[in-house]
């Protein structure tokens, strides 16, 4: 294992800003894994740290395939995590919406450019991502439909779901979108949580990433974790359930639960008198794929996404 500095920049009042990469094996640029891009992606950073730990042992045992090089970047944004900010602290810009970056541009464009220049030419790319809507997911692999998405390889992770979605204009500056256009088979892996470490979902995600690496013959590794035949879902076909009222949200069902029409999945409670304003019910038979996780909700807020069976 070698540690390389991918980007370094002076700061007016803080230590140098550094992005470090951990390299395993040698030869063909085979797989790059990117962890926290935002300062609250603690789950993503934790998972990367555990992958670095596992790959260190695998390398010592000679279980990284000869001629294959793996790069892991646990954090692209340590400055924001150190001050508990989601985005770049100086101007609140999102590095993950600056790709492919511009090395003569603004600060976060330069950071994105340095990351992207390091990541291009890798055959496979995995980003441990978080979503712009607050909530929990069933751990899954997600890809923007660019025409280059590789569903067959996505299924090799053995996660419960593989989803695809149509990119919108604001998605065209994401790493996943640009990585695909530059010929990397790119996958966004959602590990259920963002700003909390969820050990169960972390283990599921780490196992899935190692399984994919094993099945693509990057490492020699035998997984004993649960291996799903992935459900392939178009995000546009997920059933959206919204809040009819604002109030305190009390979730009755968890992400991953199987529901039938009419099942109560949450209550919305009046914040003053405690009366139930709304019993939120499943509208279809299926699996809860996404659930809003803030304790209070606005009227018409997206509460659940259900995969219909």
């Amino acid at each position, binding site marked *: 294992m070698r540690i390389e500095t991918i980007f370094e920049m002076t700061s007016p009042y803080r230590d140098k800003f550094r992005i470090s990469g951990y390299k395993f094996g040698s030869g063909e640029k085979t797989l790059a894994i990117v962890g926290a891009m935002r300062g609250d992606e603690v789950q993503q950073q934790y998972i990367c740290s555990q992958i670095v730990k596992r790959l260190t042992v695998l390398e010592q045992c000679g279980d990284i395939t000869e001629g294959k090089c793996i790069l892991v970047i646990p954090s692209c944004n340590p400055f924001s995590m150190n001050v508990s900010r989601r985005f770049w602290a100086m101007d*609140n810009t999102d590095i993950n919406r600056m790709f492919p970056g511009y090395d003569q*541009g603004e600060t976060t464009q330069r950071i994105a450019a340095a990351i992207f220049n390091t990541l291009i030419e890798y055959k496979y790319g995995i980003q441990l991502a978080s979503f712009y809507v607050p909530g929990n997911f069933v751990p899954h692999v997600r890809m923007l439909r660019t025409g280059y998405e590789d569903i067959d390889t996505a299924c090799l992770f053995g996660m419960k779901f593989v989803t695809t979605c149509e990119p*919108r*204009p604001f998605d065209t500056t994401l790493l996943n979108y640009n990585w695909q256009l530059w010929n990397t088979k790119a996958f966004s892996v959602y590990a259920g949580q963002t700003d909390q470490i969820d050990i169960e979902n972390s283990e599921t995600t780490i196992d899935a990433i190692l399984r994919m690496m094993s099945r693509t013959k990057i490492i020699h590794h035998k997984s004993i974790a649960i291996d799903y035949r992935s459900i392939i879902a178009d995000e546009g076909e997920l059933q959206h359930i919204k809040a009819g009222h*604002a109030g305190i949200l009390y979730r009755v069902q968890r992400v991953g639960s199987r529901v039938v029409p009419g099942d109560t999945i949450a209550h919305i409670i009046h914040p003053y008198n405690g009366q139930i304003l709304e019993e939120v019910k499943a509208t279809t038979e299926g699996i809860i794929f996404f659930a809003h996780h803030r304790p209070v909700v606005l009227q018409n807020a997206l509460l659940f996404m259900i995969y219909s069976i």
Partner: protein
Amino acid sequence: MIKTIVSTELPVDEQFRIKKNVLQNGKGGLRFCVVTGTHGDELEGQMVCYELAKLVGEELNMLNGTLEIYPALNPLGIDTIQRGIPNFDLDMNRIFPGDPHGTMAEQTANAIIEDIKGADMVIDIHSSNLYLRETPQVRINVQNEDSLVPYAKLLGMDFVWVHDAATVLEATLAHTLNTNGTPCLVVEMGVGQRINHKMCRRLVGGILNLMQSMGMWSDRKMPDITPPLICKGNQVSFLNAETSGVFLTELKCGVEVDKGETIGLIVDPLKGKVLSTVTSPQRGYLFTIRAYPIVYEGSLMARIYNYEEI
């Protein structure tokens, strides 16, 4: 007449509302919209809306048609002194036309578009951000250059920047409206979190001048409108910080600069040293300058319109 175009419950004893003021007079059928407050840290539009609502309200007989004033498309952002919508990751001006089935922010964006579309002219007022100071200017996507520049010339701004099309900008309010046949001009001026009275009054005069040219306003005492500089995107130099530090400058935007002229210094306050000098790469018109002094490598320091002769 005050109308509510979006109304949604907030969790605890509060209703979220986006309102507009509809002023109507005469038999003219044209509708003119002034919108602002998409970014909660941009406040110049608040004074423009106030002045317009007051002036037109007091002189309603001069109006021929409908003027609709939307001071706050992102009221929670303005109230919390933040650019975006609280608890929402995306810039509101990157999610249009919104989605009636999406998040609350996307539903709101959709409702705004549905309310504004079909207007005969829309002015979308912005005031940069906390970091940059802007000369009063109109920004137009190159795709709409032919149809919008003639209107932009009537607004009394110093500068019209016809900029390149970028995919990510397809999700702005202005692009969405223009694509759907509702002409929309984007005005940028001043700096975030502040109000420049002189600039605001100039824009009020420009808006009334444009309305007069459309037959929607009749006033014999209109201000003289000076033609703006018109600039194409490829004639603009972007100056970025070479070093992190503290930016010191004596310049304001809206001035001519020479090739090699010092725009400002980036200094180290601990060691008392100049870290780098920001200089103009050519003669031109400085229309953007850094306002917030703390900078990182790459921070935008200035934008200069390159020309040979004014």
